[in-house]
């Protein structure tokens, strides 16, 4: 599936992890699977929130375990 949220996540991932190909960024994988470290993960989330105009506390992301759950959380808060 493709939508504004996934597109924004994908763009952020490609900036933070330049060696990743766009089609590797799917809802089924986690950022860790893609090679992101802890700082990279915050980087991706912050950039994506910025793109989408969303402001959430980091504590909101404790249940996020893959790109699918990240996308669902961000969709719920998309203005």
């Amino acid at each position: 599936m493709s939508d504004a949220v996934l597109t924004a996540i994908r763009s952020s991932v490609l900036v933070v992890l330049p060696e990743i190909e766009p089609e590797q960024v799917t809802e089924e994988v986690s950022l860790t699977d893609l090679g992101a470290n802890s700082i990279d993960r915050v980087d991706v989330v912050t950039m994506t929130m910025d793109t989408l105009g969303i402001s959430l506390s980091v504590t909101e992301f404790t249940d996020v375990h893959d790109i699918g759950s990240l996308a669902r959380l961000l969709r719920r808060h998309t203005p």
Partner: protein
Amino acid sequence: MSGPWITGAGVLCATAAGVEDFARALRAGTSGIGRRSVDGDHPELRPLLSADLPGFDLSGATADREEPLRRAAARDAGRSPRSVQASVAVALEGWERAGLHRAGVPGERIGIVVAGHNLGGRFAEEVRPRYLSSPVHLPARYPLQFMDTDHVGTVSQLLGLTGEGYTVGGASASGNVALINAARLVESGAADVCLVLGALTDLSDMERQAFYNLGAMAGGQATEPEQAIRPFDAAHGGFVPGQGAACLVLESAASAKRRGAAPWAGLEGYAMRLSGNGLADPSAADEADVMSRALRHAGLVPGRIDYVNAHGTGSPLGDETELTALRALFGHGGPWVNSTKGLIGHCLCAAGVVEAVATVLQMRDGFVHANANLVTPIGTGGRLVGTRSQPAAIGHAMSNGFGFGGFNTSVVLGRPDTF
């Protein structure tokens, strides 16, 4: 000589990308001083002169480096602040020129000392509007990046360095302070190899203005930019900041011999003393004392020094104080004296390392570079190089670094055939 060898170097400044480029630019007397544009009111009260890197980007600055390190640099530092990227570029050059990319020196035997503090002023100024408009969206890496230790972390990750590493600060003397610390790491046996990085001081507009308001910085509102910086000239009116970074590879003679690396020069002696004075108030007695101690540490008498790379910022008080100190130590005549800052600006925290590279290159190639715009030398005595470079045989050289807050440092370098 028992001090460490210098087995590699890298440099990036307004007039050169890489050491061979730098050697050519120094010999030609190329000036890197230009004029910046400023926004806002009262442009006549703003600092306009600067020796900036021409169009820096990491990919271009590492274009001559070998894989896989070049690609790793893009991955590890592709989004780093400019100052860190400059450190990466010069570290890779020094690493390659020292042959360390092919040598099997274990990472745990290699240290790194970064010269500098308050390196990211401009970067902070760039990020601040984001904080003001949307605090939540600050770049996630900012807490790593605003710390100067990011230079240590990023370069050590890239090169696999796991020995000792840290930053040291001594204002404009930071470069020499780092050289001295690195020499001690090698001499004590704590490291076989130590990278010394003079980090690019990326001044914010506010920091430039603060220096300017203090009267420390040359104005040059009416003059051509290249003529505004005049170390040791009667018309000197302050320093011009320069963007620059440099790397020197210090190595124990035993380690270099083991891997067949030839020395570029030796670090023969050094000294550092505080003035016990928090101001921008240099002392000729303290400067002469630190030079004299560095000579004694090197086991040399003043007559053995052929060349002094002066601190020589172009500040009237600083220039006069240093020349007085040089006369006190060397008498009239004495070694050649020039100031690299007249050509590439004052690289602040990196200056000592950049100028040590300049000294090693002049020593290797047998010349002393010009003193930019030296038309009417202040005072008498002190063998100041004129406005053209000239041949000179340099067996032993001294490089000075003095910093606001009473930092006095001097290092002595020797050509390989003298030890």
